[in-house]
């Protein structure tokens, strides 16, 4: 079977984001970009399934500007077999992303789509669930353990109160949480090899998907900052402050 893994290019998680002075968004120019960390986990899981001989091909897809091909190359260097870049001029919302993915799924016929549970830029946490709804496939979100038995998917989900065990049959949508695996680093020979792997480029209009935005961003601003506090000399002083100044204990 084939596995499709969408990967998003986002600001590297170690970089402190800066709001643009005109409040139109955050500064993306000359900022270090990287693959969304959850998507790395998704790529890793797909590769492990392939290495366990449950899949023949792993396809990495990214939707975004031309530079998103770097993110696809990262997935290819990790071990994905080929890439698809859906080139867009402006950033698009999860609803349109899910529509694009749906038409790619219909073309490529994968039996499994593995996605990160959320992207660390917009923090939306929507795309996997939306894709599942469009395809009418089962969804298992926030997965921290995944086992494939014949055509059955056994998974463990991270939920607020603990864990949940689910079962569904393929084809299916899985979104991954942090503890599922530890993604591998691409070796230098594999980075070189990735440059020769096939990477197809298409546009949303080739797929007949309307990517116009539904949410109008009126303003992006800094969060209120906290006043600097005080360093105390002892635990005694801390207990006194909490009791008599902050009055919280």
């Amino acid at each position, binding site marked *: 079977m084939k596995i499709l893994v969408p990967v998003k290019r986002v600001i590297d*998680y170690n970089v*402190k*984001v800066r709001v643009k002075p005109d409040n139109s968004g*955050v500064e993306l120019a000359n900022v270090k970009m990287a693959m969304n960390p959850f998507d790395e986990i998704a790529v890793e899981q797909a590769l492990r399934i392939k290495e366990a001989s449950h899949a023949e091909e792993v396809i990495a897809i990214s939707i975004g500007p031309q530079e998103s091909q770097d993110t696809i190359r990262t997935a290819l260097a990790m071990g994905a077999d080929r890439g698809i870049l859906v080139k867009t001029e402006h950033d698009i*919302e*999860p*609803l349109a992303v899910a529509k694009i993915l749906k038409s790619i799924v219909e073309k490529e016929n994968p039996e499994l789509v593995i996605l990160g*549970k959320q992207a*660390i830029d917009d*923090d939306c*946490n*929507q795309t996997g*669930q*939306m*894709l*599942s*709804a469009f395809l*009418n496939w*089962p*969804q298992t*979100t*926030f997965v921290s353990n995944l086992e494939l038995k014949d055509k059955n998917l*056994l998974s463990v989900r991270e*939920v*607020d*109160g*603990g*864990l*949940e*065990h*689910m*079962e569904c049959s393929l084809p299916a949508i899985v979104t991954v*949480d*942090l*503890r599922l695996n530890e993604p591998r680093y691409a070796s230098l020979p594999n980075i070189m090899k990735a440059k020769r792997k096939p990477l197809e480029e298409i546009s949303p209009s080739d797929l007949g998907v309307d990517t116009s*935005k*539904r*949410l*109008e*961003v*009126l*303003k*992006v*601003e*800094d*969060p209120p900052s*906290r006043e600097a*506090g*005080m*360093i*105390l000399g*002892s*635990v*005694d002083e*801390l*207990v006194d402050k*909490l009791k008599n100044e*902050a009055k*919280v*204990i």
Partner: protein
Amino acid sequence: MSILIIAEHDNQNLSAATLNTVTAASEIGKEINVLVVGHNCSNVSKQCSQIPNVKSILEANSEEYKNFVAENVSKLIIDLSKDYSHILAPSSTTGKNIMPRVAALLDVMQISDIIKVVDDETFQRPIYAGNALSTVKSNDKIKIITVRSTAFEASENTGGSAEIKSINGSGDTDLSKFLKSELSSSERPELTSAKIVISGGRGMQDGSNFGMLEKVADKLGAAVGASRAAVDAGFVPNDYQVGQTGKVVAPNLYIAVGISGAIQHLAGMKDSKVIVAINKDEDAPIFQVADYGVVTDLFDAVPELDSKIN
């Protein structure tokens, strides 16, 4: 057109996050109805009917809703959606699982994790782990919204008298099968609604050292949390995690012990009213958001704190 709130519960008790969602809905300013979807959940409907300002309760009581499987619950919500201008759910793992399916099938863009209602079509939400706040206006015909419960006060839960109407379910989609849950049981308050939270980080060195925090927590009536580093190191289970990818908390008092204060952790706790940091590294970024910091070895400070807060 009115508002529908998806109640969060365990078939027995209504979760506090629903009350925060009611407050967000009140700010939108339309008639509020609450959907209680579950199995043998009439007790929850009764609790919801006591919430002031709620017009009516729709109760869908059926076996296929017992474990809140997203495919089943979202189908029901879509079937009900035509009567509403706004559908809101708490931004819990349940709400996050269900609501994007509803949005997709109604062909609207969900507004995730709102922290402020500007008007009935404009909302503020955090992006980049709360390092920026985005104000967005939705032009969709129906607004599908998840609500960050810590950003809104809880509404009252007594004094109301909403009518309870029983409605039919939409059937089992047979897409996903729930097998079992492993829920952490604890006598302590729930992390997201606790008035005081004490969290440990990588500095705790070992899972067994969390016993020190638990002792303090029990004296203060606090919940125990952890940073992602502590979860990754295997000290505690993931449902302890406070941060961008874990739970978001905003208690009256947050005590961070042996936590350096990575951006992704701050995203989950920096709206707490009073923040205390105990860390031996004076350069730890946690001190930049703390109201009170103590630069010391936590293995001395925590037992001392324990002995002095009676």
